[in-house]
């Protein structure tokens, strides 16, 4: 998959030395340099995710019907040229429901991602950098949150909060979803803490917060991004599952609501596949784009994981496991 892109990049390689001379490249240059280094998987993932964000913004305006519209019909209507993705049992247009529902699901995912990742970064770097009793305490704290069963607790808490809005759901999801990221970031901070450049900064007398913000965080940006993407995926899947169970705010459409109505309208038994297949696929493609982005970030930071396709490109038919890891030159140079 990534193969197609790699050899083409050779042509753009001479651009690198030019930029090397002066550190202050323009913002757009840096963005395009970063883009050309991204594995294909990440590019595909980011493209799909951008599409969802676009729909989240303009969805309610381009929806052909009012998602709440009801007709007197009693059976779901199969896809026609009029209703491209069919209708629900009460005549609501499934396409319009998906277009309108994108906003709530995407916002919930992103907000949860931001809150939970912020918590992970704060707890993880503080525990890793400060060490000692602070580390013991914070690690204990995050371990406890790691083993508390999230979905049942969410069901119980949100069951007590009737007519839950988006924000309480996002807050509860973040409160239960930050611990894993904090552990990973703490481990990385521990390994960075004793590197020379951090020791030098400490020797110069930099304050701890300055070292954390300017020395440690920039070196973990990949890890933080991966943690963010993972949390968004968790938030999207969990919130859709919760809505599917009927623990949601029905005044706003989201993907889970559509599936909830399909399930409670016994779409499966009626054979009304369009009623649950289209919204389900919409969630699956969104999840897929996030997984692809994370695969891409992984490959960016660990060349060993790069997809099998690049190996074949190297023409090494009889690659033995013990051979040194083949790394494609362009990737390495691009990363410098």
């Amino acid at each position, binding site marked *: 998959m990534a193969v197609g892109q790699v050899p083409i990049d050779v042509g753009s390689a001479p651009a690198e030395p030019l930029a090397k001379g002066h550190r202050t490249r323009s913002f757009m240059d840096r963005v395009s340099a970063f883009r050309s280094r991204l594995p294909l998987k990440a590019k595909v993932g980011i493209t799909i995710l951008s599409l969802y964000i676009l729909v989240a913004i303009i969805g309610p305006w381009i929806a052909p019907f009012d998602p709440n519209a009801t007709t007197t019909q009693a059976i779901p209507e199969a896809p026609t040229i009029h209703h491209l993705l069919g209708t629900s049992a009460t005549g609501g247009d499934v396409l319009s429901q998906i277009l309108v529902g994108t906003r709530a699901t995407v916002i919930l995912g992103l907000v949860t991602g931001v809150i939970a990742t912020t918590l992970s970064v704060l707890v993880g770097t503080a525990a890793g950098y400060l060490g000692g009793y602070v580390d*013991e305490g914070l690690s*204990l704290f995050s*371990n*406890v949150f*790691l*083993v*508390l*069963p*999230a*979905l*049942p*607790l969410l*069901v*119980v*808490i949100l*069951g*007590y*909060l*009737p007519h839950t809005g988006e924000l309480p759901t996002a807050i509860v999801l973040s409160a239960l979803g930050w611990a894993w990221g904090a552990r990973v970031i703490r481990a990385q901070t521990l390994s960075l803490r004793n590197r020379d450049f951090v020791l030098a900064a400490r020797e110069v007398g930099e304050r701890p917060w300055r070292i954390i913000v300017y020395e440690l965080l920039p070196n973990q940006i990949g890890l933080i991004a991966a943690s963010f993407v993972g949390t968004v*995926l968790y938030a999207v*899947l969990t919130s*859709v*599952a919760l809505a*599917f*169970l*009927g*623990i949601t705010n029905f005044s706003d459409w989201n993907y889970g609501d559509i*599936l909830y109505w399909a*399930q409670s309208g016994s779409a*499966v*038994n009626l*054979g009304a*596949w369009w009623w*649950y*297949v289209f919204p*389900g*696929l919409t*969630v*699956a493609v969104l*999840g*897929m784009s*996030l*997984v692809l982005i994370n*695969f891409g970030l*992984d490959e960016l930071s*660990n060349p*060993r*994981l790069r*997809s*099998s*396709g690049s*190996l*074949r490109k190297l023409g090494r038919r009889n*690659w*033995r*496991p*013990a*051979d*040194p*890891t083949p790394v494609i030159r362009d990737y390495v140079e691009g990363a410098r």
Partner: protein
Amino acid sequence: MAFIARRLAFYVATIWAAVTINFLIPRVMPGNAVASALSKFQNLTPQVVKALEIEFGFHTKGSLLTQYLQYWNNVVHFNLGVSTSEYPTHVSTIIGQTLPWTIGLVGVATVLSFAIGTLLGVVAAWRRGGLLDRVMPAFTLLQATPYFFLALLMIYLFALKLGWLPYGQGYTLGVVPGFTWAFISSAITHSILPALTIIATSIGGWMLQMRNVMLTTISEDYILVAQAKGLSSRRVMFTYGARNAVLPNIAGFALALGFVVAGALVMEIVFSYPGVGLTLYNAVTSNDYPLMQGIFLVISLAVLSASLLADIAYALSDPRARRRSAF
């Protein structure tokens, strides 16, 4: 022995957190749990209300501290109160009836998923660039699919269209539960579809983690030495490579076992499987707070015992890890 002290602190803290959350939720949340539970009963005298409150385990009299101590006392004696939706059955009785279903089905599915996934991950890493390695992303993408969506598709295809497998409930209605062939075969055929969906959505994670760790492991020098000695490929792959690469997977597996009780929530609701998850859902929809709290407590305890097992298994399988925690 700092390691043991740290782990002990972790267990104590987690048990404390689980019980305290359980205690606080009905008291902090808006809405009066007692009133909503009692609203099912009509025309109650104050004495009856008081008696019912005590029976349900609400104990709203006294300061918060005495309530808290009373709650701990109940938990220690496993006195979880009486279910309000299935009055007068005790919460512990209901949990005792539903837990075997969940553990049986989801436990077996998790073990199978772990074993198959780990094995496939080993092979995918060993034959890097081979067929398995190239189709692996497809398995991982299944994980990004909402679980119940996959379940609905499978129900539609295998139960409704093809009619190969039954779905819904744990066994065919009319069969009397017991150690009879009719009941056991019925229970097994009813569990195939849910088990398949669990395996399909979880196997990718085991494969990916195993492959990634294995790739790092097999590029180490001792693997090269083992190959240079002329050991068979299979021996190098399993005894030298996989033996060392499997450690993170073992740690993950023990945690996954803990989440067996919790993770089945959505599955049990989609398949109306008579396990703990469905019971929790019914408790939530019928405002049965004692049952809700009891199930959450049992789930937390299950996760904790699994992480204890993880610690032990990890310490046994990796001498280096005796100084660290398993996860």
